[in-house]
C-alpha cells in the first residue's frame, strides 16, 4: 500500500470531481423539472394519461442505464438526420449525451417517487383546499406538492445518491470523470488498489455530503407547522437554520407551534 500513490491519486482524481458533479447536478435539475408535471400526469385518475406515462417509466426503469447511454451516444450518431441537424455539435460530445441519458433515466425514477408521494397526501387536505376556493394549479403548488415532497424525501435522497453513483457510467463513453480518470491512472501505474481506493474515498465523500444535506433538509422541514412527518425527530434548536426559520415565522406572523397556516408553507 503506497500512501504517496494514494495521495497523488486523490489529487489527480479531484480534477474529475468537477465533471462528476456537473453531470450529476445538471441531470438532477433537468429530471426534477421534467418529473414534476409527469408525476402529476401519472397520479391523475385519468387512466389514459397515467398509462402513457407508465409506458415511459416502465421502459426506462426496466432497462439498464448503460444500454440507454449507449443508445443515445452511439445510436443517435448513426442516424443521418441527427448528424445533419443543428444539435450535432452537442450530441457529438459525450458530456451532453451522458447528460441526456442520465436525465431521461432519472426522470423516470423521480416520476414514480413523486407519484407515490402525491397519492399519499390525505384526500381530506385536498378537499379542504378545494373548499377554500383554490384553483387546481394553486392546490398543487401550495398544498399537494410540498406535502408529497416531504413525505418521499428519503426515497428522493436515495435517488440522488443513485445518480451520483450512476455518473461513473459516463466513463464508458470516454468522459473523464472520477472513474474514467481512475481507469486511465490504473492503466498507467498498474496499481489498482491505491487508485481505486482514492476513487472510492472521493465517491464516499460525495455521498456523505449528499446524505448530510438531505438529513438537514428533513430536519428543517420537520420544524414547519404543517409537517406530516411526526416520526422525524426535529433537530436541535441550536442548529444554524433555526434563526432563519424564526425570522421567516415572525415575518409570516406565526409561531412555530401555531395552527397550520397556508401562508407559511
Amino acid at each position, binding site marked *: 500500500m503506497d500512501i504517496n500513490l494514494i495521495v497523488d491519486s486523490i489529487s489527480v482524481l479531484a480534477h474529475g470531481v468537477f465533471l462528476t458533479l456537473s453531470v450529476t447536478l445538471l441531470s438532477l435539475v433537468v429530471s426534477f423539472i421534467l418529473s414534476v408535471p409527469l408525476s402529476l400526469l401519472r397520479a391523475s385518475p385519468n387512466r389514459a394519461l397515467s398509462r402513457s406515462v407508465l409506458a415511459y417509466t416502465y421502459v426506462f426503469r*426496466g*432497462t439498464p442505464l448503460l444500454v440507454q447511454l*449507449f443508445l443515445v451516444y452511439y*445510436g443517435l450518431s448513426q442516424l443521418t438526420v441527427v448528424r445533419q441537424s443543428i444539435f450535432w455539435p452537442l450530441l457529438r460530445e459525450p458530456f451532453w449525451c451522458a447528460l441526456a441519458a442520465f436525465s431521461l433515466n432519472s426522470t423516470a425514477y423521480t416520476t414514480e417517487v413523486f407519484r407515490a408521494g402525491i397519492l399519499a397526501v390525505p384526500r381530506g387536505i385536498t378537499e379542504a383546499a378545494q373548499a377554500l376556493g383554490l384553483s387546481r394549479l394553486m392546490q398543487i403548488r401550495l398544498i399537494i406538492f410540498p406535502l408529497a415532497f416531504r413525505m418521499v424525501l428519503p426515497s428522493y435522497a436515495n435517488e440522488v*445518491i443513485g445518480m451520483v453513483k450512476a455518473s461513473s457510467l459516463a466513463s464508458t463513453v470516454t468522459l473523464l470523470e472520477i472513474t474514467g480518470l481512475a481507469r486511465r491512472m*490504473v492503466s498507467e501505474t498498474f496499481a489498482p488498489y491505491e487508485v481505486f481506493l482514492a476513487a472510492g474515498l472521493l465517491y464516499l465523500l460525495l455521498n456523505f455530503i449528499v446524505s448530510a444535506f438531505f438529513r438537514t433538509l428533513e430536519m428543517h422541514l420537520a420544524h414547519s407547522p404543517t409537517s406530516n412527518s411526526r416520526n422525524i425527530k426535529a433537530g436541535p434548536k441550536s442548529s444554524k437554520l433555526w434563526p432563519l426559520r424564526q425570522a421567516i415565522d415572525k415575518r409570516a406572523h406565526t409561531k412555530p407551534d401555531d395552527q397550520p397556516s397556508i401562508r407559511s408553507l
Partner: protein
Amino acid sequence: MTRAAYKLRLLQLRTPYKLTPNCQSINLGLTRILLEIIGINNTISGSKRSFDEKPYIRRPYSGGATRHKAERTCVLSFALQFFNGLQITVVLALVSGALGSLLGLFVAMAKLSKRDVVALLGRAYTTIVRGLPELLIILVVYFGGTAAITALTGRYVEINAFAAGIAALMIVFGAYCAEIFRGAIMSVPQGQAEAARSLGLKPWQIWLFVILPQMMRVALPAYGNLWASLVKDTSLVSVIGLTDIMRVAFIGAGSMRAPLTFYLVASALYLSLTSMSLASFRALERRIEIPGH
C-alpha cells in the same frame, strides 16, 4: 459441407467460446465461421476467395441482393450470439443473487447482533458498499483481484471476468439485501423469538423455523425490486469483457455499424428479463400473502 464436418466445426465453435476462461470476446472470425455454416461462402470446401485469405482487401460489390442476404444471415448468426449472451446474463444474475442473498442474510444478522464490534463491521460494510458505484466495485474486484491473487500465490493468476462479475455483484447485492432483511427482521414481533426460546428451541432453530419465514413475507416486495436492479447491473460486467447481452450488442454494433438496432434488441431483452422477474415476484407475493396483514 458433410454432416461430420459440420459437427466438427460446431464443436470447434463451442469449445473456444464457452470453455476457455480467457476467450472473452467474440472475434469476427467466429462470425465468418457461422456464416460458413449457414452457407454464405464455402471456405472449408476449398474454393479460393481472396476475401478470406486477405481480409483487409475489400471484396467487390456483388449487387444489393447478395448484400441483403448477407445481412439477413448475419442477423441470424447474431441471434445465436444474443442467445448465448442471454444465457450468461441469466446465470450471472441467478448465481450472484443467490450468493448475495446468503451474504446479506448473514450481514443482517451481524448488524442485529448484541456484540458492538460485529454490528459495527456490518454497518461499515453496508455503508461503504452502498456508497460506491457498482462499476467501481466491479473494476476493483477484476483488476485488484488479479493483483491480489497473483501476489498471494506467486504465479500469475488471472481472474475470469465471469468470476469477477459474480464476486462484485454478490458484494453489492449483499449490502442492499442486508438493509432489506434487517428491516424485515426488526418488523417480526419480538414475542415470537421469546416464545420460541421458552419452548426450548436452540438459537439456530429459532432463526430457521420462526424468524426467517416471517421475515421473508415482509421483505419480498423490496427483494423483488432489488432482483430487477441486479438483472440490470449485470450489464455493467460487459465493461470488463464478459460476453453477456450488452457485450454482444456492443460487438455487433461495432462490426455491423448499426448501433441502434443492436442496442434496441439488447434493451428489449433486458426489459423482458426484468418484466419476467417482477411478474414472478408479484405472483410469489400473492401466493404467500395473508389477508389482513
